[in-house]
């Protein structure tokens, strides 16, 4: 367990998350991709904190803030999904662009 292996793991998680976020048609699945990316980001933040941050509390705080971003993203995302579904009876990303017409 070194900084490099940890960052490689984080990179792998971000890569998979990016694939998911780009490829999934459904809103909710898309959000799962984002979550997975943030998972990698949090791991990287903690890894830096442990190996090159000399244990400064800001490193931990950064992770907490990423977690908060995640929570907010999820809450707002789902609220939007509900609102869009109510309007369009669909949860596809394509439905968003259709809203213009």
């Amino acid at each position: 367990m070194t900084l490099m292996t940890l960052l490689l793991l984080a990179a792998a998680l971000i890569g998979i998350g990016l694939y998911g976020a780009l490829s999934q048609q459904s809103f909710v699945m898309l959000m799962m991709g984002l979550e997975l990316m943030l998972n990698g980001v949090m791991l990287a933040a903690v890894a830096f904190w442990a190996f090159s941050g000399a244990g400064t509390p800001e490193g931990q705080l950064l992770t907490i803030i990423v977690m908060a971003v995640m929570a907010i993203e999820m809450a707002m995302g789902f609220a939007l999904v509900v609102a869009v579904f109510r309007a369009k009876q669909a949860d596809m990303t394509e439905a968003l662009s259709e809203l213009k017409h």
Partner: protein
Amino acid sequence: MELLTLLVILLLSLGAGLAVQWWPMRRQPLPSYPQRAPFLGGGLPDTHAWSRYHVRYYPMTLLLIAFEMEMMFMYPWAVVYVEKGMMAVMEMGMFLAILSVGIVYAWREGVFHWQ
């Protein structure tokens, strides 16, 4: 060492839970289709139960996701509370007061009722 102990306990209990199910069941044939139909007091369903289930409390769950974040801040706060004294009281008081506004607003909007 503590983590190892936890791991051992976790694996042993999980293994025991699975073994108690698997051991007596390893030779049992799959039950007949009529037995596998869901119990409805003699009635039958039209469809599978798995469906786009209308969760009647979904606004509450969204509220929870946002409100629960406050826990992340509260645990470290609890540890230094006595050390910091009044300052900790003030800051957390403000923090919780702001968030309580959200809960009260949500309650007044009827979020906790079944939609």
